[in-house]
């Protein structure tokens, strides 16, 4: 195993043109230990998050619709999701005979892999970022769009007309809304001058970006909802049109994996929103990671509030809204941000004309 890894490492060094070092020099054992600690921490956080978020979502839905929601299992129904998870772990494997087996089986594994990786990129506080990349935000966006692939694989592999339609629609929606999201983030990058998520978060110690870039914030929230396929953009799960969208044919544990991925992504997308617009882990008195998680949960509640308040919009209107409203506005916002920064720099004498 170690010999195999060493070979891969030397090969990668050769490709990247780096000076040759041994694997043990580049990766001492304490770094490997830290990587494992971070990984276990991220997985524990992910599982707690998923359990809490499903409970919060169901309770919040009950609250918004003037009913009670789950309240029998455990205090306030807190153990309902644990109960459901244990039940789902003991479910039978049902795979449609007509399915494209390999694609059908890999799709749910992929979505969980991606959501675990996204947890590794978030800056939970100064010094508690599992993976600090100098192109963090770009990598985050790139890896989050791999989810599209998983949706497409599920839709295609199921060999079911509803699944395929749902999958195709979801892919069209996710890729379309990725553009305004990326454009709205560029404004933040211009102000911060860094692509590293930790630097973006710590640069907002005095003023949160939401006050500097309000238009970008609105665009970000709308496109984040669309990326997560939450209502009013839940064309994916338009029950009246196609049964359950791309995961119609998934049941038992594979459905659980999709559900897990979806809620894990809800957290990481909200966390990205907090990092970009609400100062990340900055805050007085409490430890930074408490601020980070707290802010993220407030952001999630805000998303749920939108989700349970607005009605689903029609698919053609959704696409038109994206291409004809959101993208022109975000381009204009980009130009305005550029002009604003240059005027501010000229006023403070940072640049000479």
């Amino acid at each position, binding site marked *: 195993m170690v010999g195999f890894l060493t070979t891969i*490492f030397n090969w990668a060094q050769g490709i990247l043109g780096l000076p040759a070092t041994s694997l043990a020099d580049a*990766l001492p054992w304490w*770094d*490997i230990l830290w*990587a494992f600690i*971070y*990984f276990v921490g*991220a*997985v524990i956080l992910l599982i707690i998050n998923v359990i809490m978020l499903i409970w919060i979502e169901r309770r919040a839905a009950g609250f918004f619709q003037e009913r009670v929601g789950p309240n029998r299992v455990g205090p306030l129904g807190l153990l309902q999701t644990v109960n459901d998870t244990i039940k789902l*772990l*003991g*479910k039978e*494997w*049902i795979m*449609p*005979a*007509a399915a494209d087996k390999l694609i059908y089986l890999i799709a749910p594994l992929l979505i969980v*892999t991606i*959501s*675990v*990786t996204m947890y*590794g990129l978030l800056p939970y506080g100064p010094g508690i970022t599992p993976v600090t*990349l100098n192109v963090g935000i770009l990598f985050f966006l790139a890896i989050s769009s791999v989810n599209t692939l998983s949706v497409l694989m599920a839709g*295609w592999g199921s060999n*079911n007309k*509803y699944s*395929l339609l749902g999958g*195709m629609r979801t892919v069209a929606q996710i*890729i*379309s809304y*990725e*553009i305004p999201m*990326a454009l709205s983030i*560029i404004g933040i*990058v*211009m102000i911060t*001058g860094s*692509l590293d998520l930790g630097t973006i978060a710590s640069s907002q110690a005095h003023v949160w970006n939401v006050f500097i870039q309000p238009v970008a914030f609105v665009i970000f929230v709308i496109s984040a909802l669309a990326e997560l396929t939450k209502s009013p953009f839940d064309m994916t799960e338009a029950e009246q049109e196609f*049964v359950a969208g791309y995961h*119609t*044919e998934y049941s*038992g544990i594979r459905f*659980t*994996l999709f559900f897990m991925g979806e809620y894990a992504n809800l957290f990481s997308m909200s966390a990205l929103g907090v990092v970009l617009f609400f100062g990340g882990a900055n805050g007085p008195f409490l430890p930074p990671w408490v601020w980070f998680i707290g802010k993220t949960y407030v952001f999630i509640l805000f998303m749920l509030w939108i989700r349970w308040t607005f009605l689903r919009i029609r*698919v*053609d209107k959704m*696409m*038109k809204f994206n*291409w*004809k409203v959101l993208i*022109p506005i975000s*381009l204009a916002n*980009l130009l305005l941000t*550029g*002009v604003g*920064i*240059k005027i501010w*720099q000229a006023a403070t004498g940072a*640049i000479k*004309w």
Partner: protein
Amino acid sequence: MAKQFGTLFLFLAGGFVLSLVIVFVNWLLRPRNPNVAKSRTYECGLETEGPTWVQFKISYYLYALIFVVFDVEVVFLYPWAAAFKSAGLLPFVEMAIFIGVLALGIWFAWKKGAFEWN
């Protein structure tokens, strides 16, 4: 650098292993009573008719094309944005032209009716 990418690799590999472990636990615990009716394609109880993998509506393809064009340009915008503050006025003018080309692209697709969903 090796530390960061090593951790990243661990997250990717570990995430995959985690999902495999969950599936494996289910494989151990599952009841086994297969039935032909269970593994039929579920389309609201009716027998499925005709192949699923057929030629698909052209609008999806158009959106995908426009998406590729825009996403590549957005990737070009990121390094520019990161260096924006430290650079002078010239990059700004250049990027205004670049965004102008982007806007022209949108306008063209708009006039061609690529954003209409029929």
